[in-house]
């Protein structure tokens, strides 16, 4: 039997919630994506929390919140500890996205789900891979190979291919087959017939206008607004689609020498662009090419100003265009700017992606848009007066508590180690001591002690009473005295490295200085919230710049890839159902759309076994070349090699007869051309090919129809007994072979039609091994 594959959605099926799926391949659990929404709704992670500890590896596909937002929280709170795999851009831009989320949230609330340190430590151990790098899993996952491939949606965006024993499981969500300014299209089409394909139905019901038309409309709308003295707000993501928007604007501004200021405003704007500059090898061919030829980095922006704080924006008078995060308008600069600009009819808020469910952006995108929305304005202000005093007192008290705890723990520690040594036979005593203090959750400090405790728990080899540590001088001596290890005296290479790297702060300096100071200064502060109603007078517009393949393309891509089994996730219930029905009809018979936590088995019902091809057999096999493939008919006898594997040997008895197999996909048009080149008069008449006066060629059955039982095509050659008939039959391959080029899936394939010779005698049956040597 084939490799066992189970898929269990943890979040994001039959709706547009964040994505998170558990895929187990022969018992090895992959958590593919670990997303969260802009509300950071912990209830969404319930299913994940139940399986987090069983996950063996995490694969991330895109650097946005919906695909990786829950990673820091899951690592810290849910017991997720598996190694994580992602591409370099997903790692970097994902990190920036999380910083931006955190900083935006922290500004307006006492956000405590995770901290910057949690983000850092979650991302720290990501193994970075490049596109089409085959990474061989080790240990439990021995034999599994994972490889990221370009998805085309976001920079570094990934289609994951998991391979075991030659069977492919492909996870492809949010792919884009269209080539864009900064990204190449997805390579999904190059995978044919995977065992399992997991894909999304997000766009199954949407169709897009052509890119050119959309771009023009986009630019026209923006220009119209700024020319009428209005401001344009584009709520964008932190480091994903915004790169494409920036390039569109930058290029247009450059071409037309426009001077309206454009701002890119997130807490990590300059880092984002800096990293984008260094990811050219992940971008489109045209960007790479222009860099190779002129060394002009497309992300050296001349017209877009990078901002990390709102205050600088206010200094600029006149109409302006601002790209600000978050796209959901729930938090971040976009939220504040929206509240400020919404009341002016001249202004425009241009959404470039569908807002997440139940966010302000989604509300504003509804038709008709609401007249007024209630928003919560929150602000972080430093503490003053009594509050400050209270805070300080509180801090003091805490410090004292901690100090007390520390001393207590030290005592406990010594007791514990003592206890451990004395009662080595009864570890329960020690266990109790470990668990007891952990309930006070003294944080980091405590962790250190726990280590010590565990050390102390190791029973000493020789059970004796407690004593001071005594180290035996174990230095070895030889004829020249104590053996010197030269390493002890060499200077550590890293010394000088440290000198050069500016003192690293908690954030490894990954943050822009300004924004860091907002959060990291230790001035005590608090969040003040007020609810207010905003009357939406500005224009609202939604244009699809999501960079996903639209419904029609998705369907045709699925038809091309034609997986043996298809799993649909992520998309509204209607879209999922629609795509499911479509695929059942046109793609394959096995289409699944599981519910949350419903584990489905997509183990292929494919049978397979391995055999060794013996030299003797292979020397008698004549291959026919057909495009990428070479094909031969084999009749063989099963034998066994010394090491017990099956091998195929030549037959010792006459080969049983078999039907002739004609391989290839015939296009009537090509056939016509071929016959015409041979001097036969050919023309199409009523779906058939008329050759000469009387003979007709007809094609029955379509090979394009995949998945079904079809796939066998028939050519019918009809005509009266005449010279012409035999001539055409000869051309079709009688008495030898005809090699004609037919086009197949845009690839040049050579098809050989072989009818063998009809001279009787030694049976030569179609594609078959060469007549054995006498």
């Amino acid at each position: 039997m084939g490799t066992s594959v189970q898929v269990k959605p943890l979040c994001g099926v039959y709706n547009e919630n964040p994505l998170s799926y558990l895929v187990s391949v022969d018992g090895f659990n992959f958590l593919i994506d670990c997303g969260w929404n802009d509300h950071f709704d912990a209830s969404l992670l319930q299913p994940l929390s139940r399986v987090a500890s069983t996950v063996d590896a995490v694969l991330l596909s895109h650097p946005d919140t919906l695909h990786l937002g829950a990673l820091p929280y899951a690592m810290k709170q849910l017991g997720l500890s598996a190694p994580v795999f992602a591409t370099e851009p997903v790692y970097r831009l994902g990190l920036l996205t999380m910083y931006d989320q955190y900083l935006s949230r922290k500004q307006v609330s006492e956000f405590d789900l995770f901290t910057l340190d949690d983000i850092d430590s979650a991302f720290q151990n990501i193994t970075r891979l490049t596109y089409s790098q085959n990474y061989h899993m080790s240990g439990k996952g021995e034999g599994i190979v994972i490889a990221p491939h370009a998805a085309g949606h976001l920079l570094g965006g990934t289609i994951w291919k998991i391979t075991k024993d030659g069977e492919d499981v492909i996870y492809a969500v949010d792919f884009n087959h269209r080539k864009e300014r900064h990204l190449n299209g997805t390579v999904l089409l190059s995978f044919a017939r995977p065992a399992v394909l997991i894909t999304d139905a997000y766009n199954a019901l949407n169709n897009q206008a052509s890119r050119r038309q959309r771009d023009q409309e986009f630019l026209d709308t923006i220009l119209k607004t700024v020319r009428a003295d209005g401001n344009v707000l584009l709520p964008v993501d932190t480091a994903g689609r915004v790169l494409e928007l920036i390039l569109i604007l930058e290029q247009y501004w450059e071409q037309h020498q426009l001077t309206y200021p454009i701002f890119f405003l997130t807490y990590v704007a300059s880092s984002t662009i800096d990293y984008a500059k260094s990811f050219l090898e992940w971008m489109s061919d045209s960007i790479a090419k222009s860099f190779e030829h002129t060394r002009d980095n497309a992300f050296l922006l001349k017209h877009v100003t990078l901002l990390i704080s709102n205050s600088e924006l206010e200094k600029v008078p006149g109409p302006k265009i601002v790209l600000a995060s978050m796209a959901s308008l729930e938090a971040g600069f976009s939220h504040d700017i929206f509240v400020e600009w919404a009341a002016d009819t001249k202004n425009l808020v241009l959404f470039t992606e569908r807002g997440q469910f139940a966010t302000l952006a989604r509300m504003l995108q509804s038709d008709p848009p609401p007249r007024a929305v209630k928003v919560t304005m929150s602000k972080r202000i430093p503490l003053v007066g009594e509050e400050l005093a209270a805070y300080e007192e509180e801090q003091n008290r805490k410090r004292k508590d901690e100090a007390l705890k520390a001393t207590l723990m030290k005592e406990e520690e010594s007791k514990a180690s003592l206890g451990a040594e004395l009662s080595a036979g009864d570890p329960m005593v020690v266990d109790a001591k470990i668990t007891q203090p952990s309930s006070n959750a003294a944080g980091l400090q405590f962790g250190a002690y726990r280590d010590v405790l565990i050390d102390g728990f190791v029973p000493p080899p020789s059970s004796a009473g407690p004593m001071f540590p005594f180290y035996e001088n174990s230095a070895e001596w030889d004829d020249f005295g104590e053996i010197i290890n030269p390493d002890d005296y060499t200077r550590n290479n890293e010394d000088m490295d440290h000198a050069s790297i500016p003192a690293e702060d908690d954030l490894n300096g990954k943050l822009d200085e300004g924004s860091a100071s907002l959060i990291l200064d230790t001035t005590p502060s608090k969040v003040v919230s007020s609810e207010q109603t905003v009357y939406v007078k500005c224009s609202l517009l939604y244009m699809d710049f999501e960079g996903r393949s639209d419904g029609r393309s998705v369907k045709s891509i699925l038809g091309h890839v034609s997986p043996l089994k298809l799993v649909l996730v992520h998309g509204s219930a209607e879209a999922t159902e629609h795509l499911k029905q479509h695929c059942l009809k046109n793609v394959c018979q096995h289409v699944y759309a599981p519910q949350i936590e419903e584990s489905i088995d997509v183990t292929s019902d494919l049978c397979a076994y391995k055999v060794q091809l013996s030299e003797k057999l292979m020397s008698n096999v004549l291959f026919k070349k057909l495009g990428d493939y070479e094909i031969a008919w084999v009749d063989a006898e099963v034998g066994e090699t010394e090491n017990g594997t099956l091998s195929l040997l030549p037959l010792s008895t006459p080969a049983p007869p078999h039907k002739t197999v004609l391989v290839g996909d015939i296009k009537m048009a090509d056939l016509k051309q071929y016959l015409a080149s041979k001097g036969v008069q050919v023309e199409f008449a009523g779906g058939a090919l008329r050759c000469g006066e009387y003979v007709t060629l007809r094609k029955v059955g379509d090979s394009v129809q995949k998945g079904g039982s079809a796939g066998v095509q028939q050519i019918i050659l009809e005509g009266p007994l005449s010279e012409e008939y035999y001539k055409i039959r000869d051309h079709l391959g009688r008495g030898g072979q005809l090699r004609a080029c037919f086009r197949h899936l845009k690839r040049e394939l050579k098809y050989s039609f072989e009818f063998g010779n009809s001279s009787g005698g030694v049976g030569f049956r179609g594609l078959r091994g060469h007549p054995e040597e006498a």
Partner: protein
Amino acid sequence: MASTGQPALSLKRSAMRDEDQLIVTPLGAGSEVGRSCVHMSYKGKIVMFDCGIHPAFSGMAALPYFDEIDPSRIDVLLITHFHLDHAASLPYFLEKTTFKGRVFMTHATKAIYKLLLSDYVKVSKVSVEDMLFDEQDILRSMDKIEVIDFHQTLEVNGIRFWCYTAGHVLGAAMFMVDIAGVRVLYTGDYSREEDRHLRAAELPQFSPDVCIIESTYGVQLHEPRHIREKRFTDVIHSTVTQGGRVLIPAFALGRAQELLLILDEYWSSHPDLHKVPIYYASPLAKRCMAVYQTYINSMNERIRNQFANSNPFDFKHIFPLKSIDEFNDTGPCVVMATPGGLQSGLSRQLFDKWCSDRKNACVIPGYVVEGTLAKTIINEPKEVTLTNGLTASLNMQIHYISFSAHADYAQTSTFLKELMPPNIILVHGEANEMGRLKQKLLSVFADGNTKIITPKNCQSVEMYFNSQKMAKTIGKLAEKTPSVGETVCGLLVKKGFTYQIMAPEDLHVFSQLSTGNIIQRISIPYSGAFAVIKYRLKQIYESVESTTDEESGVPTLRVHDRVTVKQESENHLSLHWTADPISDMVSDSIVALVLNASREMPKMVVDSEPVANEEEDTKRAEKIIYALLVSLFGDVKYGEDGKLVINVDGNVAQLDRESGEVKSENEGLKERVKMAFRRIKSAVKPIPLSGS
């Protein structure tokens, strides 16, 4: 068909043996340094590594020996890094030879390749006819070069390859090529030591079967990095604090960037030096800086972490210098200038100016070529000849601190010990140095399982790899795993070097191919009685069934379940069948029969001969078999119990006509008789009866 098959077969046999042979031929860099180019063929696939020129020669003489090979047959050309001795004959090879394969290099290599070669074309002072290529050729070659990222696995014509970080310079790669499971690693120039910006060469995950490795430094050992860096900074620091000037002649790309990083960092951590300017005089390097600033991700963790703060290649203390006219020589300073050999140009101008002052210093930071001034001054002569022909006393201090990023003996031997490749081919090294390395490595791999070869240019190394072909049987054919002795029949589908066996019906499931068939329908004029045809057919064929067509109700005959004969109208018969060799044959005979029947119509000869009975049939068949066997083997007799006894040169074989079993002492004869009998049988009864 069968007769023409024989020579083809024997040809193929030898071809197959050749295919198992892996041949590696250095076309350059074989027992020499320069013009790296290694040609490799296996299983009919050809890969070439690197395409350099020899810096010591010019024109055609600098090229690798391309005449020895057929460029049009090369599938893939892989370039390891941008240095001239590894990449500079590429425009020539792409534009002026019949090469039509694909070329790959890393992103950074490609970007720098163009700059470096354009510069090379501009500065090389050779006559027009000696020029191997011009600027246009380079631009055209850029369109043909494809890029590969580190670890990215690509497949071209069944050749799989990917690359590892090689250290050495930015974008340098080691290529691993996998053809039908045999892996070859070509290191190019590599360094296992991490430095300020580059990663150390990686240790490949899989051990290769053949390792083609550089041997530039032979058995020499490098000074540890931190010691030489300290020497470097100490010399410079002391010179400038004593009011002297420091000249660093360096090649524009590669190590120069490393030195700049060291200097910039040193200056950052020593504020007292801030008043001493560092100049960097190389327009080419300035242009390449954009590349260095971009491909940060090809560099090491350290640089990438620094990048989080600011781009480390945005130097804070180093200023570009366009020409000596711009240079304001007023006090202590550090100047890094090209060329590295002090042959001419800015570095020489400064050298001439500064060499007599003992306060000044000259630091030579890398490998220097024989015959250049830099090589001369390493020996610290008393006097040197200036550009203007005058002699001057050499008073400035000369320091030789090698920052060359090639592996030394320690790195090479540990690298090989980790990999344990069964075959090691040494290239890119001076012959003596290579010989010493070979001897030393032989003592390391003393178990004798490792072959170490040092081919000269155009000397082929031949290795045999016994490749076992494994096939995967899938789909319907594999529903049950067969046991020994059973037969397996199906389509063997080969893609690249993977084999699959499947039933024809499954072909469209597991491949992008589809199966089809051809139905032939022919109408023949015939106005006689249908029964005549039926009678005649029954005389010839053993199985003729008559039915009536369900739709039209006309009488039909079905011959051997293959060909259907139908009386379409008074004047026409129609035949239809699915094309395959036997049915074609049957239908042809029916057509002939029908034609004959209509021609002989008036005669109405009734064949008096009764339908041949089975016994007679068998007898006749036996006769034919006997006759054919006699014609093949000569001495054939009927033995007891009905067996045929065949005697060839004293070897006796007994053949059971019923079962086809053969008994003989002589294996060869047994096989031959078996095969002959099988063929005779299929000739006597070519149409298998349905159900049999």
